[in-house]
């Protein structure tokens, strides 16, 4: 089961809902080790992105991803805006003119997206950032896709690994982002960006399955 334009729209509809309904939760996490705005930033961005793609007419999946990316970059601000913007922008570029993307396309694009995030943010694994959820998610999805599993099944694997990665951020001492200023005090708290990554992937699957 590949993802077409309509499904891509659904996917971001669910992502937007998930982000909005976890706005307080993400902000709470960011209060502990950041500046208490991650949920606010992400909600603002996805609300705008949602308006944009709802009104847009698309023939390619990449078009939906591109509008999401542009809107996030132009409205989220902070660290997460450029990072998630880059993820979806790179994905959109990789999707090219495809009207449908299958699991292999998706994983390939996701890998490109993650590369973009790494190039921009220069975080390494265990720096306690979204990268700690994105990287294991990519690995798991890659394995599943190369086994020929379809997109929902691939995403399911990715979500499970993202969740583990997200939880593994708890004991880490942050090396990148605002939490790094806390030094040792950042340990014992779950990273907000890793959490939003998990939420986004989960909501994507939900949207796909409808």
């Amino acid at each position: 089961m590949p993802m077409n334009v309509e499904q891509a729209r659904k996917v971001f509809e669910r992502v937007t809902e998930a982000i909005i309904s976890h706005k307080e939760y993400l902000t709470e996490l960011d209060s502990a080790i950041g500046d208490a705005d991650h949920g606010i930033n992400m909600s603002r961005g996805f609300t705008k992105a949602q308006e944009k793609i709802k009104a847009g007419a698309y023939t390619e999946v990449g078009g939906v991803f591109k509008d999401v990316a542009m809107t996030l970059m132009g409205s989220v601000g902070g660290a997460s805006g450029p990072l998630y913007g880059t993820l979806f922008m790179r994905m959109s570029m990789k999707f090219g003119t495809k009207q449908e993307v299958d699991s292999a396309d998706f994983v390939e694009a996701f890998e490109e997206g993650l590369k973009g995030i790494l190039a921009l943010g220069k975080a390494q694994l265990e720096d306690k950032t979204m990268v700690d959820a994105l990287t294991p998610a990519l690995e798991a999805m890659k394995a599943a896709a190369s086994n020929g599993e379809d997109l929902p099944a691939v995403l399911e694997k990715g979500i499970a690994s993202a969740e583990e990665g997200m939880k593994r951020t708890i004991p880490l001492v942050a090396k990148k982002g605002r939490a790094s200023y806390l030094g040792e005090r950042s340990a014992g708290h779950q990273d907000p960006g890793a959490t939003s990554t998990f939420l986004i992937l989960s909501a994507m699957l939900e949207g796909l399955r409808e």
Partner: protein
Amino acid sequence: MKKLMNKVDDIVVESLAGLEAAHCDLVKLHPSIKAVLRADAPNCKVAVISGGGSGHEPLHGGFVGFGMLDAACPGEVFTSPTPDQMYEAAKAVQGGKGVLFIVKNYTGDVMNFQMAADMLAGEGIPVAQVVIDDDVAVQDSLYTAGRRGVGGTVLAEKIVGAMAELGASLDEVKAVCEKVNANVRTMGMALTSCAVPAAGKPTFDLPEDEMEIGIGIHGEPGRKRMKMMSAKEIVEMMAGAIVNDLPFSEGDEVVAFVNGMGGTPLIELYLLYNDLVKFLDAKKIRIARKLVGNYITSLEMQGFSITLLKLDSQLKALWDYPVHTPALRWGK
């Protein structure tokens, strides 16, 4: 959390409208994006532009005007602005001699300014950037996000703005900004947390007898929590860390900057300045210039920061150069 506001999402734009209304002789808002522009821009000089999350007022919008910034790009409260803001602001105020971005070292700010710089460079507009990272509370390392940009930013904007006003080239303006950054150190502390309006409650709780040392300007917790101490002890601890860091030594001339975090009354800031004078006197570090007040804030947070900038004759002359902005004015 009580705030004097209307809709929480409109705080930044309504406050900007107030700034423009109050200071229309000095600043004007960009017609389409959130940016405070110098009223008489563009000028045939290097355009100096800064920006960052809101909630630090008067930084940066209050520093737009003669001898300081040409544009300021405010994000949402404590959230970096987006690249289109810096891009459009630069296009509106640059006069052909290039653009300098003064960026506070936060991951979000750095990335968003970088994207704007790329966009401008793509159009052939010369852009340089200096990232301010003066916070001694944060351990510096190649492998971390590095030090934050805090109080030193105010001094950099003043001095760099003067340099640009004098007609220096982009390279020269950038070099002065780097010199300021290399010679400035800051440390902050807080007695209370602030509350991000959209979050609706204080970012952290601080017991009645404790303080956060090494706080930034975003209501983020500091490096450590300590029992309250006297003003003198706090000043000695903070100024001591600053002096050892650069280091500042006997005979140095400095700008001494005691900055309130927004909710600290002036009576306390001057009292702290008095303790700082004593501390520096004992170390034979001479205060050649000073600034005392609320200039880079964290909403209604109670607390303060100390910034020291080592001066040479160039920096001193640039500091004394006339400035006329909503929040800083002399010589004009």
